[in-house]
């Protein structure tokens, strides 16, 4: 029993089981909580309710179908699953990606990052009970989904990348529309700041609430915005650059403890808001100079065979480090496709993070961790 706050009620422990489906949970999972009055004294997390056998499915179908399956790794930000698989296969096949295709990939990745962070803000708004803001955020996110539809024909499962490039060139007016959306979100940032960052009610629920220490981040293997909010400057785009990120000028926001404690819920929120701004900077740089040329390496044909061997690639998804280990025996189907997803580490940190907090803070803390159960369960 962990009595970390003086107002502990010292009642008998009660057990609450929340989930697998519950309004305060971001996705199917089950939490078994021990409560001492309003304080959480212990927590156990069960996952696996969304297990689809995704890695096994990749082994049973062709290499090209694996791209479509990896799309479903994280339905909110499908492009990252596709990208990491394509990068691994291209590394294995020594298949070069034309510069134009790389730029299109980065444009889609950054749009997906903004879309993912807006979804995160929707869940935060829901957790703190600010229902009105949800509609504002979804309205802006729709504009990004419109861009996906314009380019790929789909809003969520894009299935747009191919080994050696992308499946189609940018359509007329796409670049101008992306710039319009960037400008729109830039204007909206003031609105988000008013509604969230400087809002008294939001600060009350998030500032100095449940900080995550650097030590816990390292022990649990957390990456992405959650790790950066706690002061760990790890970004795959900088440390292991891919798809031309090394040529782009952008900074990696790191938690500053603006509300008094480093790595609290408010820091985890702010880091994403600042990342949206950085993503727009990246997009503006790219859109100024989209290189001309092919959008797909012409070596990639219908009878493309992935040579025997193995490779490991990683990308910075909106939730953190997403890795992919592929193994080929030279046959028509993958021998193994394994994903390393960031949410697994975030889930692992939950019991340590929520112990000693009030039950009313639980939905806010869960939302602040940005859990993508689909990618954890696979």
């Amino acid at each position: 029993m962990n009595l970390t706050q003086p107002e502990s009620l010292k009642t008998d422990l009660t057990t609450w089981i929340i989930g697998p489906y519950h309004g305060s949970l971001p996705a199917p999972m089950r939490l078994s909580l021990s409560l001492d009055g309003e304080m959480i004294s212990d927590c156990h997390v069960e996952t696996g309710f969304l297990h689809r056998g995704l890695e096994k499915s990749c082994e049973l179908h062709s290499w090209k179908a694996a791209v479509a399956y990896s799309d479903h790794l994280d339905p909110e930000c499908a492009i990252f699953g596709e990208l990491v698989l394509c990068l691994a296969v291209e590394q294995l096949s020594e298949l070069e990606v034309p510069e134009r295709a790389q730029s299109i990939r980065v444009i889609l990745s950054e749009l997906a990052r903004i879309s993912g962070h807006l979804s995160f803000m929707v869940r935060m708004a829901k957790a703190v009970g600010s229902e009105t803001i949800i509609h504002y955020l979804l309205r802006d996110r729709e504009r990004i989904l419109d861009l996906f539809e314009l380019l790929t024909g789909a809003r969520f499962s894009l299935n747009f990348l191919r080994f050696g490039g992308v499946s189609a060139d940018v359509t007329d007016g796409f670049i101008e529309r992306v710039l319009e959306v960037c400008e729109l979100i830039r204007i909206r940032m003031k609105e988000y700041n008013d509604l969230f960052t400087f809002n008294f009610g939001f600060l009350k629920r998030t500032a100095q609430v449940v900080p995550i220490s650097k030590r816990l981040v390292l022990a649990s293997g957390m990456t992405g915005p959650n790790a950066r909010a706690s002061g760990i400057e790890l970004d795959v785009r900088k440390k292991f650059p891919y798809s031309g990120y090394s040529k782009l000028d952008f900074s990696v926001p790191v938690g500053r403890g603006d509300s008094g404690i480093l790595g609290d819920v408010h820091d985890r929120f702010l880091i994403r808001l600042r990342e949206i701004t950085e993503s727009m900077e990246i997009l503006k740089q790219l859109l100024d100079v989209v290189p001309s040329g092919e959008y797909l390496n012409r070596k990639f044909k219908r009878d493309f065979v992935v040579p025997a061997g193995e490779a490991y690639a990683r990308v910075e998804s909106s939730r953190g480090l997403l890795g992919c280990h592929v193994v080929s025996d030279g046959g028509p189907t993958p021998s193994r496709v394994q994903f390393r997803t960031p949410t697994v580490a975030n889930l692992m940190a939950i019991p340590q993070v929520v112990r000693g907090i009030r039950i009313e803070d639980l939905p806010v803390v869960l939302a602040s961790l940005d859990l993508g159960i689909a990618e954890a369960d696979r």
Partner: protein
Amino acid sequence: MDKNLIVTKINKAVQGAVLEVRRFGRSDTRSIWVEAQSIQKVAKILRTDPELSLDWLENLSVVELSDALVISYFLQSTQGTQPEVILRASVVPDSPTSPVKLPTIQTIWPMGIPMEREAREMFGIQFETSPQDDDADVEFDFESSPSLCLPSGLSGFPLRKKFNK
């Protein structure tokens, strides 16, 4: 940076543990193949030696190649003392459907807990603890970490090649 430093250190601490050092795929990353039952001792050296300090387990992947299960630990140093390294070992199960045993690394790299659990459920690798595990390097509550839940009554290991065939 001495490229053979890791191998020298491992060999000094656990004689005969290193079987082979190879390039990983077509990349420049090195993969160090070690004897499976010595994996925990090797892991401890890699993590605790101040010159190596490979303290971050990025990924744990299991692949079934012909009869063997190959387990790969993708390691990095957060202090930048070493470039990334892949530690590998292989075990051969008695039959295509029987479980195998390996020493656990979860007290050395706690972030490996969910990864080991997944390897156990999907590939039937039972990670065994030993008495010296009580002397964990990192404080962590191992009991409360999340669990997967395969459907009850499911027998076999779904990611094995011979599953359901």
